[in-house]
Every structure is written in C-alpha cells, then in structure tokens.
C-alpha cells in the first residue's frame, strides 16, 4: 500500500531535481567563485569592441557575419505588468511608453554626449539670450510616416496641446509657463499662445519670460517633439488620450512605424519608408513585454535580440551566457540617504531648516552614518559592481559638472566611531548602543523603500553596518515601505522618519533646482543655507550660459552638500543591455548611440545559448 505513495513522492522529487539539473553545468561551483569576478571579461566575448578603459562595460558591439536582408529585430522589454500604451509624447507618463515610442520617435532634436541639443536632427535651435527668444527651424523635405510633409504647424501643435485647459498631463508646469502667453492660453483667455510666432513654413520663433542654460537641454519650456496636425489636430484635447491616433495608429517621424499592437503585451513595427535619414535596413521590430522573473531564461533561449530595462541584480543570471554581449552605460541616476533636519512650511511654501531641534542635527552624526555604510561590499556582492559607491550628487556622466575630486563617504567604520565619540555620542549605559549627546537613548528611524528580496537583504545589511558602530537604527513602520507610501510620508515630513533612502533619476539636465532649493517640496531633507541656495539659483541663472561659471556653481553645490552631509550620495548605477550575437552593430553610448535605422542582423534567428 505504501509503495504507490513513495512512487508518487519519487516522481515529485525527480521532477524538482530535473528542474534543478536543467539549470546549468556549473551547478555547485557557481558560489565558490570569488564574488568579485571581473565583469569586463564577459564583454570581451565580442569579436570586436570599442575600447573605453574608464568604463566597466562596452558601450557598443559589432558582431561578424554577413548581414541578412531585412529581418525583424526581437526586443524584450522587462516589465511585470502590461504597458500603458499611450503613444504620444505630450501625454505619455511612464518610461516604458517612451521606450516603445523611441522606435517611432517624433523627436525634432538630437543630443550630444552632454545631452545638449545639436543641429543634426530634424530641427535646429537658435537662442537669442538678450531678447529671451529661441528660433526653431526644421529641415525641408522631412515626411511623416504616411508621407505627408512635416510643417512648422506640426511643431506648434504640441504647445497648444500641453497648454490646453483640458490637458491632464504633468507637462503643463512652471517651465512651460515660461513661454509668454502660455498661462493666458491655459486659462482660456487667449485663443493661442502669444509667445509662439510662425515665421515661415519651416521656422518658429518662441518668446520666453526668462532664459537659462536649461534651454540647451530642451528645458525652459521648449518642446522638442512634433505632433501630426493632419491626424491629431482636429481631435479635442480631452478626447485625445483615448483616441486611436494615440492608442493604435499614431503617425510618426521615426525609422519605424507601428504596425500592430496587442494591448499591454507587444507592439510590432514595420520600417518607415519615408524616414528622412533613409530607409531602415530592418524590415521591422517587435517589442514584447517580458516578466522579470523569466527574462534571463528567455535571453538564454535566444528569444530576444535586445533586452531593455534589464535589472542589474539579475546580472549573475546572464553573465555566463555565450549567445549575447552585455553592453552597459552609466545611468542618469543616483541613490542617496537623506536626513531630516527641518520641515516644509506649506504656508510660506519654503523649507525651514532647524538643526538645533532635529534628531539628526549633528553634522558628525550624519557624516559618521555615511562612513559606516559598507556600500562597496553591497555593490560588489549584489550588483556585480554594476553599481558603485557614489561620491557626488551629480552622476559622472555629466562630465562638465561632475566633481571627480570629491572623496565621498567611503567605508571607514573607525572614522565613523571616532566622529561619534568626538561629537559626544557615546555608550553611557554599556549596552553596546550609543546614547545621544545628552546621554538619552538614541533610536534613529529609517524609511526605506520596498523592492525585491535583494533590497531587503541590503537594508538589513545597512542596519547592521550602523549597529556595528553602535547606532540603533530601526525601520520606520517596522518594514520596508511601499513606493507610494514612502514618498507620501517623506514629503509630509512624517515624524516616524528621521532619515530615508531614496533615489533620483536626474534626466538629461543635472540642475539641482527642484530638489535642493529652498522653495522645493522635493527638498526632502529640508536643508537649505545661503551657500546652497545661491549655488542652486546660480546654476540656472543667465550667467550660467557661461559653462565655466555653471561648472563652478555645480562644484560649490556638490562640495557644500558633501560637507554638511544632509544628503549623502550612495550609489551610481549602470544600466545593462543584453544584446544577442545576431545583432551586427549596436551602440548605446549617449553621445554616439546607434541610429536605429542602421541596425542589421547576421542570422535568421537570435542565437540560443
């Protein structure tokens, strides 16, 4: 009688074992390898690479082989939910839609390595700083994907969409209001935006209230995309977001155009024969959403030529694959730990710093907490050095403004302890935990965002780091806080929070305004000072059209915050792109990214591992 039972168990067991065995040849040895495997080695698998010794990763790859005629590029987009599918630059909200649109693109400008607008694209920009005017001029002969010529009306239309009173997106903001007449138009008192002046069929002149260097990054209210008047011009703004022109068949300017959409799951593109730079070499592209849990296996199986939004913590799962090259580039991102040293006064709409009465008011305490963090080990073990200890609040990608000479808070527990001792945080009652300067118990409440299992381990590790130097840090609310709740609490200066761990994606304009100014709600640590405020203001002032001046101000900003340590940078990160060996040429360098119409394939199917 028992026999059958054991048979069933045996079957179950063998199923699990088969599964485990399927996984890989190096089963069991994987963990014994030194954890600091030199990740550069993987990239050398590529036959020919462009060398850049300062980077961990290659930014481009060229695979040998005869390019095939046409072909369909298979792209996997890592995402655990369906995409939203708002294919309109004025209305979209998340990065995934923007990524899907990047294949079709309506961008007027191209950018250089510093993310400044160039004149290489469809349009060119001419800024008249004296008169606060900018002139946008488009090339002649550029056509929409349906063959209709691009006109300056198509450039003007987006302003009237964003400025419209029925517009529900986030882009009608203070920057947009910098355009003269935008507010009147939004209020409904004007038919059009008076600051927009059509010079001729190819030229637009825009008048601003004030200009700053941001305009060269597409800021100050300048809009860098076109919208097809002949398709969306007649659709009321309120109905635009649900219209087919946005959801199903947008007319575009890019190398490819949308052919079919399975809502939320995949988009297939075909080449745009009217593309102004010439007909693309591929026949088309298919982008599919891949769940994060299965993406590594899908890559190994050769399901995709290119994978985007690949999480660096999964690096280990793909680093030994032989059917791909892994490209990487620094991201426009930094994570940080912030200390609450004040409150936001909503009546006066400004930050009120109060070092005296804040638990985290001691500069030594803050600095010591920075030195106590072994971020280096976390970067190495969990991120395979795809993240690195950040020394500054400006990512190094912004070469002109990044201050590479800053030391940052490298791991140094002795120094941390010394600082604490010096500042009077000593263990009075002998329980191994330091009391504050007055000998009172010190419990520091840290708010941290929830994430995957790795995130939990990391936070636990950091708490441990602090405990090792005698600081009692506990989690606010007793657990990691879910994203929405986190920002809700941090922004509301919740008393449960003494310090918090956040991250910012900087966008292409590294200006600290909005995050560190005295009127900024997102200045979460609530720290401001004369030095800081003047630097923040100066960075976006007209004087800063002088890049040296601007860089100087950035330096002041970075150094000041390093010293007061109200916001300590934690990590910069790399984004990585697994690229199948079928792709002939691919480059992700910000300055010199592959023109997508030139991508070629060397085989009929992606290479499987």
């Amino acid at each position, binding site marked *: 009688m028992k026999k059958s039972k054991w048979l069933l168990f045996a079957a179950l067991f063998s199923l699990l074992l088969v599964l485990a065995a399927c*996984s*890989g040849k190096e*089963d069991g040895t994987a963990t014994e390898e030194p954890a600091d495997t030199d990740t550069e080695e993987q990239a050398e698998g590529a036959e020919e690479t462009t060398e850049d010794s300062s980077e961990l990763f290659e930014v481009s790859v060229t695979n040998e082989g005869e390019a095939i005629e046409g072909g369909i590029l298979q792209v996997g987009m890592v995402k655990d939910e369906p995409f939203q599918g708002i294919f309109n630059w004025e209305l979209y909200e998340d990065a995934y839609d923007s990524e899907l649109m990047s294949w079709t693109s309506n961008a007027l400008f191209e950018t250089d390595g510093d993310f400044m607008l160039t004149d290489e694209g469809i349009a060119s920009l001419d800024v008249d700083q004296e008169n606060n005017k900018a002139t946008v001029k488009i090339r002649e002969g550029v056509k929409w994907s349906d063959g209709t010529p691009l006109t300056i009306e198509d450039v003007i239309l987006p302003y009237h969409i964003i400025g419209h009173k029925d517009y529900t997106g986030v882009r009608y903001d203070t920057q947009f209001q910098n355009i003269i007449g935008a507010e009147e138009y939004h209020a409904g008192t004007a038919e059009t935006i008076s600051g927009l002046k059509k010079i001729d069929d190819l030229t637009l002149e825009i008048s601003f209230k004030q200009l700053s260097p941001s305009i060269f990054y597409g800021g100050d209210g300048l809009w860098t995309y076109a919208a097809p008047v002949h398709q969306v011009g007649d659709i009321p703004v309120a109905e635009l977001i649900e219209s087919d022109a946005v959801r199903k068949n947008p007319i575009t300017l890019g190398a490819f155009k949308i052919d079919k959409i399975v809502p939320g799951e995949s988009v297939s593109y075909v080449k745009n024969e009217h593309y102004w730079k010439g007909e693309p070499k591929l026949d088309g592209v298919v982008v599919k959403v891949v769940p994060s*849990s299965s993406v590594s296996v899908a890559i190994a199986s050769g399901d995709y030529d290119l994978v985007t939004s690949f999480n660096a913590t999964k690096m280990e799962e793909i680093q030994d694959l032989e059917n791909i090259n892994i490209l990487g580039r620094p991201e426009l991102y930094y994570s940080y730990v912030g200390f609450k040293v004040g409150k936001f006064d909503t009546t006066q709409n400004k930050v009120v710093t109060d070092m005296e009465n804040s638990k985290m008011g001691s500069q030594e305490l803050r600095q010591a907490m920075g030195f106590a963090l072994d971020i280096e080990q976390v970067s190495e073990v969990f991120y395979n050095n795809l993240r690195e200890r950040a020394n500054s609040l400006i990512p190094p990608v912004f070469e002109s403004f990044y201050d590479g000479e800053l030391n940052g808070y490298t791991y140094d527990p002795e120094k941390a302890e010394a600082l604490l001792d010096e500042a009077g945080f000593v263990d009075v009652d002998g329980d191994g935990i330091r009391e504050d300067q007055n000998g009172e118990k010190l419990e520091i409440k840290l708010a941290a965002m929830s994430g995957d*299992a*790795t995130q939990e381990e990391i936070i*636990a590790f950091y708490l441990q780091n602090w405990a090792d130097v005698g600081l009692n840090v506990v989690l606010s609310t*007793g*657990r990691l806080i879910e994203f929405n709740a986190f920002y809700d609490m941090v922004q509301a200066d919740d008393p449960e929070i003494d310090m918090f761990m956040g991250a910012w994606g900087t966008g292409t304009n590294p200006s600290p305004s909005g995050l560190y100014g005295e009127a900024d709600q997102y200045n979460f640590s609530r720290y401001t000072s004369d030095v800081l405020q003047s630097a923040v203001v100066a960075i976006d002032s007209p004087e800063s059209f002088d890049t040296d001046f601007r860089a100087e101000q950035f330096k002041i900003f970075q150094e000041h915050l390093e010293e007061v340590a109200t916001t300590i940078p934690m990590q910069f990160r790399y984004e990585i792109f697994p690229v199948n060996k079928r792709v002939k040429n691919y480059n992700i360098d910000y300055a010199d990214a592959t023109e997508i119409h030139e991508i070629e394939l060397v085989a009929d199917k992606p290479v499987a591992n």
Partner: protein
Amino acid sequence: MAKKNEKNSNVNHVNSPPTGLQVIFREFMKDKLAMFSLVVLVAVIIGIFFWAYFMIDQQQLMRVSLRDKFAAPGDKFLLGADQGGKDIIGQIVVGAKNSMLIAISITLITGIFGILVGLLCGYFGGWIDNMFMRIIDFFITIPSLMLIIVFITVVPKYTVGAFILIMSLFLWTSTARLVRSKALSESRRDYVHASKTLGTNDFVIIVREILPNLSSIIIVEMTLNFAGNVGIETGLSYLGFGLPLSTPSLGTLVSNANNPLVLQQYWWVWLPASLFILFMMLGINYVGQALRRAADSRQRLG
C-alpha cells in the same frame, strides 16, 4: 461497597463515550499512516519549538553576511545560505516556529470567534442568527484575498500581530457557519429541550450540553483550518504582502523561488522549506482525515 463502586466506574470508563477520544484513538490505531503522521507531527512541532527557543539566537541568525551569499550546503551551513548569507536550516526552524505560531493564533482566534458566533446563532436563532448570517454571507462572497491585500497596504504599522488580525478578520466565517448548522440541529434535540425544561439557563446549555457534542466536528475543523493557515502566509509572501523582513518565515523562504536563478541553481534556499510545508500539510491532512472519520461513523474504519 465503596470499593466495588470504584471498580465498576473504572470498568465503565473504558467503554464510555461513543464519540469521544476513544473512537479517535481507535481510528488512529487502525490507520497506521495517520498514527505515524501524528507522532511525527508532534515530535517535529516540539522539536522545532525547542530548537528555535533554546538553540538559536535569532539576531545572530538574521545577521547578513554578504560573503556567504548563496553558500552551498556544506560544512559551514548544513543546508546552505540564502542571498543574505543567512543559514537556511536555522531560518527553516525559526520560520517554521513563526509560521506555526501564526497559524495557531489564527486558528484559535477564528476558531473561538467562529464557535462563539456559530453557537449563539444556532442556539438562539432569531435576529442574532439573521444578523450574523447576513454578515457571514457577505464575507463569503467578497473577494477576500483582494481585501486582505488592500488591508495590508493600509495598516500603518505592519507587524505579526497585525497580520494575524487581518487574516482572522476574513477567516472566521467558515467555522461559524459549520458550528451554526451543527448547533442548530443539536439544539433541536430533546436533551436540549430537556435541559430547558429543567431550568438550566441558556449559556450553561450552550457550554455544557451542546458544545461537548460538537467537540469532534470542531476538532476536525480546527485541524484543517490549521493546515490551511500554514499555507496562507506563503502565498502572500510571494505577492510581496508577507511578513516583515526581520521575521523569518517559511513563506519568505519559499517565495525566493520567484527568482529563476534561485529556482534552478540555489535549490537549497526554497526546496527544503517547500518540502517541509508539503510534509507538514500532508501530516496534518492525514491526521485530519482520521479525525473526520472518527466524527463520521459512516466512514469509520474501526
């Protein structure tokens, strides 16, 4: 005379209540597998609690040691380590202890409340019954998993206690329904009528007369609830709504399987915990099945 009485009462004791412990005992003696399950279960539970309380320093156990990330089973870690370099076997023991304590708490809370409501409704009927039945109907039809998830995101301070309360809020209804229907049929029996006519007050009737007659069905229900409650935390952990990080639990260990690398290569992180749950549930179910047979004469083996 006195001696004789004593002897008699002893003799009688052996063949006393027909649906009591002895039937259960007899049932277990007949079903070797259930007996085996019961012995193993009891041994494992005692062992786990003993081990967890006397041999493991939880703070030490949960200390992250990055260099030991995914250490394979071997000398240092008998069953390997997870991605924080924490010993798996220790986590299974403490996790099992936590999961069981949670399951027991939920089972007891829902059991007591459900029995109370069920008895009151079944015995008194009328508007009490009507009111609770509407509430129970309501709970049965609502998508409870969804509401549990919403609840968990709402609670400001998420602790084990909060978790137990939220779960209990949604899980008492089935016990209440079962007890109600049984209490209803019991309270229509003449011995209850007799008690009423003999002037016994209602609450005494409920506790002394009806409750003992529902004991076997309640034992079965609680056993199966316990099995169900062990599993419930696992699923929530997977969805990311499980217990706080500092509390090791079987669910957290199992939900590591979500990571394909762990699923395939670092089987020791999730498989032992999964098998532990599997065997524990099997044991409980076999025990529960024997109990159920004991309670239902038609299916009895002996």
